[in-house]
């Protein structure tokens, strides 16, 4: 069991109904964590979503460590 800080943006924030959450999880990877939260909050399919761990784009199969900061990045739309 690890604890990670998850921050939600865009439609994920609306689905989760909150901006951030400390998640206690057995997920090994970012993908597993997404899938766990997707079940809980009815998130959209992982599709073209990306993930940032500690503010760097990371692989979905990256292993999570206790205390990591995790953000799921839906397709962006700046500019």
């Amino acid at each position: 069991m690890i604890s990670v800080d998850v921050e939600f943006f865009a439609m994920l924030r609306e689905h989760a109904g909150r901006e951030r959450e400390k998640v206690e999880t057995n997920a090994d990877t970012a993908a597993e964590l997404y899938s766990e939260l997707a079940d809980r909050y009815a998130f959209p399919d992982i599709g073209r979503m990306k993930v940032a761990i500690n503010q760097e784009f990371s692989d979905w199969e990256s292993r999570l460590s206790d205390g990591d900061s995790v953000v799921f990045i839906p397709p962006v739309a700046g500019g």
Partner: protein
Amino acid sequence: MSDFLFSHDLLDPASYRQAQTDSACGGFVCFEGWVRNHNDDRPVIRLEYQAYEKMGIREGQRVLDEALEQFEVSGVSCIHRTGTLEIGDLAVWVGVSAHHRDAAFSACRYIIDEIKLRVPIWKKEHYADGDSGWINNEQAK
């Protein structure tokens, strides 16, 4: 000057331009993204930009640093608005000063293209019919 910034308030292009002036430079190119009153045929009444600012500043700064490295330019900067924007509001400002215009055009184009691709910013459009939706640059043109 070489900074990427977010601003929750109205952008002030005159002051960004002023900060970029450099008497060694002969050319300056700027790009402004404005909030349009439509998306395809759908009337838009306002937008909302949300950014993952901590990472966005890092990624935006990286884009500016790449531009400084790849093109012969002197100053590069980019300011992106967040929060609720009205039609006609300035959403993003990019300014590049250079000795010669060729580099200024190329770098300005590079910066806005990469910012749109890489910086974690999301846009929600609010439509005249009361509907709204998160859109993204892969669907949009």
